[in-house]
């Protein structure tokens, strides 16, 4: 199981003054291997705020392939405990508990490959996409990137300056198109409105793939992701070329289904333990209550750290944002989101 490590904040930068802040961590040499990451992965931060332990996962907004330092970019969420804490209180020199990077929404560079990568994001969803974009430009000299980025207005665009500088520097390999729902006069706006099926079709027609190994990376609120995926599949993009992560906004939570009291057979590290599960308790909570130490991180169904294989019985997942349709078909469940719906269930944490 992954542990938290205390990292020192090397620098903070107001990304959008009063709205979003980038925090750069100093990773000591001894932890470099532990804190290596692939573009698209995230880290979990642990804070004690008002006596409560809270954890949040944030995508890493920099690229190790480009030699960048580890950094996250956090936008304030209205009423958000951690996002406001980071924006208000984290200063250089601060010590923060950080778990090693992980996550399955990754772009693995293929230095000899030649791809057309379509990145589609909205709001904070840019953070993993920005890391991917940097990786492709630096580590895949023959690949091209097209970014479609949705925001409310020009003032809410993260990395606006960095993106236009990169577009200038990689003129033949990068295009950036902004979709703004409330653009002001003179905004860098390719299209007004939201990222919808029409926008996707127009964008791809305008930027058809040159390299034919086309890959699509989608990261935004659940609603945008659904729209984008249905737009892509409706023009016959094969699903194996689409990679997705939910981010921000309202995730799709289905908590109307009640669980039942059950016994869970939990296999962790090769050992099976039978654990009682209360009707409204998640399998993860039940396992921890029984003294087991299964992996977990965000406890929101987003990060996938607590993923296990369902081998017996049935469960209801309140959220399954971190799982793809293929994962679901393979029997993967998120234990932090699963309540039992049969009297006996069995899950196995992957070794």
């Amino acid at each position, binding site marked *: 199981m992954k542990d938290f490590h205390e990292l020192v904040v090397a620098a903070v930068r107001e990304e959008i003054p009063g709205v979003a802040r980038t925090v750069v961590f100093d990773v000591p040499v001894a932890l470099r291997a532990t804190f290596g990451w692939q573009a698209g992965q995230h880290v979990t931060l642990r804070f004690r705020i008002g006596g409560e332990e809270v954890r949040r996962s944030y995508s890493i907004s920099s690229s190790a392939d480009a030699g960048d330092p580890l950094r996250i970019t956090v936008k304030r969420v209205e009423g958000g405990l951690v996002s406001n804490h980071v924006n208000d209180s984290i200063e250089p020199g601060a010590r923060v508990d950080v778990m090693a990077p992980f996550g399955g929404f990754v772009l693995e560079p293929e230095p000899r490959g030649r791809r057309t990568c379509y990145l589609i994001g909205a709001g904070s969803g840019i953070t993993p996409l920005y890391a991917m974009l940097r990786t492709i430009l630096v580590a895949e000299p023959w690949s091209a990137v097209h970014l479609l980025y949705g925001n409310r207005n020009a003032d809410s665009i993260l990395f606006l300056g960095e993106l236009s500088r990169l577009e200038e520097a990689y003129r033949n390999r990068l295009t950036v198109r902004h979709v703004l729902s409330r653009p002001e006069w003179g905004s860098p706006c390719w299209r007004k409105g939201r990222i919808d099926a029409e926008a996707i079709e127009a964008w791809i027609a305008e930027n058809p793939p040159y*390299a034919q190994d*086309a890959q699509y990376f989608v990261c935004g609120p659940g609603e945008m992701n659904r729209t984008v995926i249905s737009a892509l599949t409706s023009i016959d993009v094969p699903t194996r070329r689409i990679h997705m992560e939910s981010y921000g906004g309202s995730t799709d939570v289905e908590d109307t289904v009640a669980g039942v009291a059950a016994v869970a057979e939990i296999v962790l590290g090769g050992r099976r333990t039978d654990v009682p599960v209360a009707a409204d308790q998640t399998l993860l909570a039940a396992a921890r209550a029984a003294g087991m130490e299964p992996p977990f991180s965000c406890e929101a169904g987003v990060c996938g750290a607590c993923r296990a294989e369902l081998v017996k019985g049935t469960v209801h997942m309140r959220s399954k944002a971190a799982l793809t349709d293929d994962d679901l078909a393979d029997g993967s469940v998120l234990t932090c989101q699963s309540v039992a719906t049969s009297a006996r269930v069995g899950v196995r944490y992957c070794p």
Partner: protein
Amino acid sequence: MPKRMLHRLPVEAYTELDWFEREQEAIFSRTWSYAGFAEDVSEPGAYVSLRAGLNEIFVVMGRDRRLRAFHNICRHRGTRLLRAVGNAQKAITCPYHDWTYDLEGHLVSVPAEQREFGEVDKSCLGLKPASVDLWRGMLFVHPSPDAGSIMEWFGEIEPHLGPHDVDELVEYPDGRASYEIKANWKIVVENYIDVYHLAHLHSGTLAMYDHARAEYGFVGPHYAFWEPLSADYAADIERNAPMPLILPPGQLGAWVPMLFPGIGLAESETSWSTYTITPLAPDLTRVENRTRVKNASDWAFGRQAWRSAGFWKGAITAKYDAGEDGDPLTSGDFTAEDVLACERQQQALRSPYFEVGPASRGEGPVLEHQEVVLRYLEGRT
């Protein structure tokens, strides 16, 4: 002692069906094949079909504007599905029994399925995929779905090609030609990469380049060649260029690579052309040319032709002054000169008295190309 051709391959490699078939299998079915210009398949549903060695392949654009390549054979009885070029809209139907595939290659309908078959598992009868990619404004296909990145094939040679931005150039319709040469494909390639002949066979037709300063060599299986403009042509290039220049003044010259197998390019200061070589028989080869030029108005081309007319009047001459009508050596056309040289070489192979002399320095690439062919036939790649 078998007779040899300059000096690595036996004469039979240029005359025998057995060699031809081995090359079709070991070279033309295992490498990337040129399949046309990018704009040939530029709208969803548009397709081209072609032969790539022993394979029949078609390339079609999906609604996501990504190209797909499939083997052009129905999974029922192998009938060829598509011919030449066209627009398939949403489905591809085999003419034989009307089996129908979507543009992803999935088998979507089998006529009278219940009555004729009971049930057909369509999911395992999709079209067999091949690979396709775009590079330098050209379409390429590979028979294997796992061909890998096309840059693994062309990445090393690319820095030795011209600085042209091919996608910015437009096709010049009059530059399109297709003709047969009665010679083995390797003779056609060898003529293309023979540096020695440039100053001799083409003494009157390619004198605007300084052959003595040519730089050339192989990079993997591909051949790179560059030569500068001749001094008098370069002296007033703005006036002398027959068409609008497509390179900045500091980067003029002619890059004339021969990509393996048989994909020649001619990248000059005013035009960018393909010279693609397709073996048809041991002694018969098709050559197709297409040309791109600057995206400029007819007026700009007319003005440049007029300005340069004085220079070109004296610059192109026939090799010989007088001769029979239609003698390529009096034509003043370097392509006609090359065709003649290739066909005479092929004819000579039949003579019992045929024997080659020494290879010059400028014919070094010929020997090296023969080595590449041997490597492929012997599986040493």
